[in-house]
């Protein structure tokens, strides 16, 4: 048997069976008979009511969490669309319809950035350069007249109230996202690992991963602390998207290790204000 705690019918060879004398065996029997019953002796009174109370509470919580994936996916899809449109509008508004062909090409690329899924370090570097390129193109002489005046005006006029509103919208989206990821991680830690559960977790993680990447590419990722948290979440979520019944305990250990190492749950809880996204609305 290996020392991993599992018992298997096909045991590895553990060397030749030791020869045992009757006297040795009898001595061990006597020892077990004398002291065995006190080994890890449970208390006489089983804390039935306390445990039952916990079972009811935890069971309810898990059922609530299990219902969340659909909610999470819907919210993720909504935010994906919302933030994607936001980025698109922002890029377009900075460039304007009469911008140079180069700027327009950049503008057309904006939605791709918003839904960028594979992220190599080079890609990240490219993305980091995007705001600089955009700001360089924001020449003061560029015309800003557009058909959708109201929308662009709200982005373009540079008033602090509009900037605040946009910043608040990203903060709200980020807080909602953090809440959803925390729900996923809590669920991952408490739910039993079976085939169905793994499939749900992986699907849930995929939805949140897209959103994480989207937020990383948005102004929400400009804040260094938030960016670091989003990057750590990205790593954990990438691992979770690989969840499948074929996973070994080592795969799960790697996820557990990432969660522990980056302390993401604590950081998520710190990042979400009391009252969550509702508080910010």
């Amino acid at each position, binding site marked *: 048997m290996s020392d991993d*705690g599992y018992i298997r019918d096909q045991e590895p060879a553990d060397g030749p069976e*030791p020869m045992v004398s009757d006297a040795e065996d009898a001595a061990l029997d006597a020892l*077990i008979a004398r002291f065995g019953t006190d080994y890890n002796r449970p208390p006489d009174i*089983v804390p039935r009511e306390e445990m039952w109370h916990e079972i009811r509470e935890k069971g309810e919580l898990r059922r609530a969490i299990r219902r969340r994936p659909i909610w999470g996916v819907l919210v993720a899809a909504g935010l994906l669309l919302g933030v994607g449109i936001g980025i698109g509008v922002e890029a377009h508004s900075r460039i304007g319809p009469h911008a140079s062909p180069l700027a327009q090409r950049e503008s057309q690329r904006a939605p791709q950035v918003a839904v960028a899924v594979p992220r190599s370090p080079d890609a990240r570097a490219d993305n980091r350069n995007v705001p600089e390129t955009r700001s360089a193109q924001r020449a003061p002489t560029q015309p800003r007249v557009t058909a959708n005046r109201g929308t662009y005006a709200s982005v373009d006029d540079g008033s602090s109230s509009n900037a605040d509103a946009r910043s608040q919208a990203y903060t709200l989206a980020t807080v909602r996202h953090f809440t959803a990821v925390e729900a996923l991680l809590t669920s991952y830690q408490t739910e039993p690992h079976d085939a169905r559960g793994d499939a749900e977790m992986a699907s849930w993680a995929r939805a949140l991963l897209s959103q994480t990447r989207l937020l990383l590419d948005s102004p929400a990722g400009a804040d260094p602390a938030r960016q670091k948290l989003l990057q750590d979440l990205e790593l954990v979520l990438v691992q979770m998207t690989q969840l499948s019944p074929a996973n070994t305990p080592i795969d799960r250990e790697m996820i557990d290790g990432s969660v522990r190492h980056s302390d993401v749950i604590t950081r998520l809880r710190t990042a979400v204000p009391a009252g969550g996204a509702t508080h910010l609305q």
Partner: protein
Amino acid sequence: MTAPVTDITSARSERELVARAGAGDSAAQRDLYDRHVDRVYRVAFRLAGDDDAARDITQETFIRAFGRLGEFRHESALGTWLHSIAVSIALGALRKQSRMDKRHVPLDAAADVGRDDVNADVDLREQLYAAIDALPAGYRTVFVMYEIEGFSHQEIARTLGVAETTSKGQLFRARAKLRESLKHFARDSQ
């Protein structure tokens, strides 16, 4: 030979309870819980060695069981099924966080201890417990279930999902390791 009427009635009522509990009837879940919790907690405590861990294992066992009652096919007794869940959770928990450290009595330290009868008894007991704690989790599970909790090899095999011969083999090896661990002490105390 026909089964006693009380057994048949009991089995039927447990089937009904399982069906109702699986459908979310909390009264039925409580009834099943009351029938089995003592034994599950007891085994959990024997394996984990402390109340907090035993409670966690017991609670987790029933939460999982209630969530999966629909999958229970009555191919084994409900108690056996619950124990298999409990042991699986306990082994996982022990693997993650070794609780063996709490009785850190070096086996070779016995020779330094005073030798009046009371002390010798205490030492002997502590050495035995430390030796059991030091067993690999699989050996220890079978040892505790068989030698201390009085499960039969058939029950252990069903609970752990292994052959009876495997259970017997595990016990044999567990005992061999215990003898090996305790031989210095036995020699010194003679």
